[in-house]
Structures are given as structure tokens and as C-alpha cells.
């Protein structure tokens, strides 16, 4: 008896690129183009001299790229009466940003910690109220808050805008940290209490070191939010502390004579730079932090 030659097993890998796949990729490509095109135009325009811009070839690459417009935007563009460029606004925004981010995260995490782990009487009602208020539009609060701050004598100042950002950041920050702390095993908190740690010791030495992913998320949310803020800065920061967004508006909307498109574009890109850097630099952390909050353990 001879061995019968068996046919080889014939399971073939399915074709990788089907028509549907091609369609999908084409769609993604077009969508990406749609969002990238304005950015491309901005970058290209900011590198062109005005003479070239006047020719109207919006999409053409600059014949001789120059960063003159960027330098002008940074150092000598006129923001209202003064002509010192947008760097003043950049520094103002930093001075507003750093204390606002730090304080709002500290206050928010402490509130979230207290509401999640310590069984405060009425904690859920308090938290619910905070969430409801968070959905009321800013504009409703502005006039009363202006009156409150003028009454207390703080008026428009750096402290005022920091306090404002802390208050408006509180609901989000509290929600973020409350949910994270509530997802931790409660026994951890009990163990710390048996070990004799008090309210602030448990917060500072046990809970906050564990909350690193949440802190990263909070820093990203607050940094981009506060940096992009326009109306609160305009109303509460005071004349000497106007943030970059307000300065940018002054540059772009108050030109005499010919509109310097290249300077406008450069100034806009400079203003958008920090949030962009934050997003690109921390995207990985951002996703990780969100996931860490959602999945226990």
C-alpha cells in the first residue's frame, strides 16, 4: 500500500487591500487634508513677505522663506497703543497660567479627595450641585463676579484672574479626582487611618503620589483651557496682565492701513504653540490617564 499524496492545506490569508479598505483610506486621507490645509496656509503665509502674498497664490510655497514676520509678531507688532509684539502677552499668559494650574489642581484634588473618601455629610448633594453649576454658561457669572471683586477691592489683577480660573476649574478638577479616588480600594484609605495618618497626611503622602496619571490629565486640561481663555482674561486680568489671546486679537483686529497677513499668521501660530506642544508631548499620558481612571486596578 502506498501513501496517498495529501493535498496541501489551502487556507489562504485574505487579501489585505479590498476595495472597501481603499475607500476607507481615501476618506481618512481627505479628512486629514481638510484639517491640515488651513494650518498649511498659515505656516506658508507667515513665511512669505507681503509682496508675495499680494500676488494671491494662497497655496504656493514661499519663493524665499523668511522669518521676518515671526520676529515682528514676537517683538514689535502693535497691540493697541504699545508696539512691543506678542511677547508681552506670552509672559502675561505664563504668569496667569502657572499659578492658576497649580492652585486649581491642588484645590480640585483636595475637594475630590474629601468628597470621595471622607464621608462628609451631604457630600453627594454638594457634588451634584457643583456639577449642575458647571453647566451654566460663564457669561451669567461675569457681571456678578466683577461686582464681587470690585467690592472686595481686588478689582482687576493677577490674583483676581487666578482666583477666577481656580473657581471655574473646580467642578472639572473635582470630578476628575473624585472619580479617581473613588475607584481606589477603600481599604487603602482605612489602612492609612489605622496607621495614624490624618486628613492632609493621607492626601499628600498616600493619595496624591498615586494620582500621577490624573495629575497629568488635569495639567493638560487646565493648561489648554486657561491658555485659550479669552473672555475671563479680558474682564478680570486688568490692563497690565492681558493674556496672549487678548493681545493676539488686538494685533489681528486693529491694523491701520494694509493688513499684515504674514504677521497675523505668525502671531496666531505663536499663540497656539503652547497647547500644541502640550498635546503632542503628552498625548500618550493623556490616554493612559483617562484609561487609568476608568478601569479599576
Amino acid at each position: 500500500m502506498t501513501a496517498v499524496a495529501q493535498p496541501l492545506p489551502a487556507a489562504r490569508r485574505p487579501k489585505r487591500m479590498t476595495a472597501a479598505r481603499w475607500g476607507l483610506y481615501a476618506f481618512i486621507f481627505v479628512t486629514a487634508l481638510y484639517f491640515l490645509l488651513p494650518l498649511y496656509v498659515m505656516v506658508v503665509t507667515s513665511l512669505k513677505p507681503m509682496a508675495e502674498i499680494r500676488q494671491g497664490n494662497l497655496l504656493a510655497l514661499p519663493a524665499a522663506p523668511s522669518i521676518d514676520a515671526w520676529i515682528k509678531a514676537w517683538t514689535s507688532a502693535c497691540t493697541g497703543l504699545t508696539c512691543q509684539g506678542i511677547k508681552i502677552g506670552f509672559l502675561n499668559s505664563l504668569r496667569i497660567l502657572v499659578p492658576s494650574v497649580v492652585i486649581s489642581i491642588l484645590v480640585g484634588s483636595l475637594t475630590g479627595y474629601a468628597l470621595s473618601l471622607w464621608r462628609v455629610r451631604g457630600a453627594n448633594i454638594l457634588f451634584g450641585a457643583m456639577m449642575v453649576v458647571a453647566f451654566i454658561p460663564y457669561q451669567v457669572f461675569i457681571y456678578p463676579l466683577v461686582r464681587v471683586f470690585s467690592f472686595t477691592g481686588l478689582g482687576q489683577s493677577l490674583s483676581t484672574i487666578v482666583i477666577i480660573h481656580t473657581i471655574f476649574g473646580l467642578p472639572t478638577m473635582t470630578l476628575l479626582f473624585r472619580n479617581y479616588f473613588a475607584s481606589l480600594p477603600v481599604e487603602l484609605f482605612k489602612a492609612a487611618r489605622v496607621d495614624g495618618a490624618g486628613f492632609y497626611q493621607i492626601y499628600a503622602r498616600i493619595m496624591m503620589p498615586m494620582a500621577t496619571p490624573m495629575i497629568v490629565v488635569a495639567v493638560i486640561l487646565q493648561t489648554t483651557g486657561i491658555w485659550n481663555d479669552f473672555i475671563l482674561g479680558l474682564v478680570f486680568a486688568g490692563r497690565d496682565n492681558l493674556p496672549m489671546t487678548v493681545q493676539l486679537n488686538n494685533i489681528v483686529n486693529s491694523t491701520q492701513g494694509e493688513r499684515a497677513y504674514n504677521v497675523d499668521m505668525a502671531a496666531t501660530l505663536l499663540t497656539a504653540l503652547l497647547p500644541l506642544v502640550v498635546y503632542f508631548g503628552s498625548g500618550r499620558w493623556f490616554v493612559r490617564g483617562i484609561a487609568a481612571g476608568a478601569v479599576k486596578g
Partner: protein
Amino acid sequence: MQKSNVDIRSLQIGFGGLKVLENLNLHVETSEFLVLLGPSGCGKSTLLNAIAGLIEVRGGEIQIGGRDVTWAEPKDRGIAMVFQSYALYPRMSVRRNMSFGLTVAGTPRDEIERRVGEAAQMLRLTSLLDRRPSELSGGQRQRVAIGRALVRHAGVYLFDEPLSNLDAQLRAELRVEIKRLHARLGATMIYVTHDQIEALTLADRIAVMQGGVIQQLDTPKKIYREPVNRFVASFVGSPAMNFIPGRLARGSEIAFIAGVNRVSLNGYAFRSQPTDAPAVLGIRPEHIELTAANDPSSVSARIEMVEPMGADTLIWCRLADGTAFSFRHDADAQVRVGDTLTVCFPADALSLFDETSGQRL
């Protein structure tokens, strides 16, 4: 800290409208190993948390070492606690985990080092002191948690299901370790578990709880041999106790009648004068004996299933009236499903329960 006793007087605990514990009394002697045993939701963990000061009580009093601590902070009660989920501080090394409580209390550094070193040696953790909890296995983590409790030199050690998260083999190992630790330290320990094997092996005394009430507080042997009611009887012991419904009959001698079968109760220690009444006979699988068919007190049954368990074999039988029971026989038993055999129930190993109240007769 000196070893303490624990005295709980008419303790009441509730959440909202739910009463978890009502009028509970319990006294734990100095150096005693007391196990709180019961199914989930029986209030045993609640009781332990109340002793630790981690939940508020509604009424009653808790004394530790003769001092009223009902409203004291956990740290001021002279207790240490080990949790089911280990509850190690994830961002601290093993050493910092163990020393955290002492650091918070402001203990001198050399004293902290001495105590941590001592506990680490006792629990074979010395080589792991600089690791993070995430770099440890489950058994190691729980040993660290025990170490963290030991360095506190507490008057009372509380264990909240410390072995429930471990696999069977580790559980057995760590159980022995805890028992050895108790023998060595002579500390007062209160230990919560739903695992009756843990309770039987570890305890000086077991408090079996159900529905927030201590059903029986006794030595493991007493609990096993003379359960006070059907709940305790069925909860303790594995494989579980068999229950056979029937009735008591007084004649020339008192006997238990189940259908055509008659079990002599000569030698059973009745708690009160027996009456002719419906009752339930309880007998543990290992107390049933094979006997000759002509034994007047024998019962014949058909084998339904055989479970070899290594050291011995569990044989599932059914009486003529349909009541099923299991009994334990040595592993060499030549038995086949479908065979009929005759067994007897020795009166001194039985438990009899009232049919309605479930109380021991």
C-alpha cells in the same frame, strides 16, 4: 503596647434604615485568637471595622484593654489591621510601607529600623525590603501587610479575610504562618473569615455569625461536634453535614425514625427532655460507619456517586425514602455505583435538631 483584651457591650450598628448589628456582646480574652466566621453579609466585617474604629456605631460600648474607645480614632485604639486586598501603599517600598505608621507617630528612627528589621525577619521579608508592592507576589504582599501590622506592637491585631485573595496553596502556607506568629507573639488576634477551615485551624474560639447575631461562640472542637443549631451545623465542616428528616420516638429506648429506618439514640446527650416530635438528624460524613446487614440499627442505602478525594473517598448514597447523604470512606473502598450497602449512625456522633426552630435538642 501591652496585649489587650476586647470587650464589646450591646453594640449597635446600622446604615440608614438597615440594622446590621443589634445588641451584640462579645468578650475576647488577652492573647486569645478569636475567629469571626460567617457567610458574606453576616456582619462580621462590620464588627471588625467597628472595633478598628473605621465605622461609626449607633450605640453600645467597645473597650480595648479596659479603656472605652467607642469614639476614639483608629490610631488611638492600640490596634493594627490586615486587609483582604493587602492595601499596601503602591508608591512606597516595602520598608516605607512597614514604617509609615511609625513615622507618622514620630517614633525615633533607630527604633523604627529595629522593629521593621524584626518583623521582616519574622516574615522572611528581609531581602524584599527595597521592592515596590507591584514587584511582589500575592503571598509576599500579604506578608508585608502582616508585617506592617506587627511593627505597630499593637494590643490587638485585626485580620479582615487576609487570605481570601490568595490561591489555595498559598492560603494554606500563610495560614500556618499566622498560627505560628500567634503562638510566638501571644498577641490578641481577631480574625474574620468565611472559610470554615481557616476558622477551625486557627481559632482558640470561633464566633459563628449569621444575620448580625452570634449563633455560637465556642472552641473549634465544640463548634464542630456540637453545633447549637442547623445553621452552624451546615456552615461548618466540609464536606457538609448530612441532614435526615424524621421524628423522635420514645419506646423502651429513645430512637429516631426516618421512614422504615430506625436509629438508636442510646448515648446521645439530650439538652432537654425529648418528646415525640418531628426532628432532623445531622451527621458528619466521616462519622457514618459501614456495618453488617444484620445490625438492628443499620440503614441500607444505594450508592449514587463516588468522589475519590485522594486521601479518602466520598460516597453519595440515597435511602429508600429518597433522602440523600454522603459518607467518607478510606480510599481503597471497593464500591460501585448502584451497589447497596448498610451503614450505621453512632449516637454519640449525632446532632439532633428541632424541625421548626432548628435548635439542637
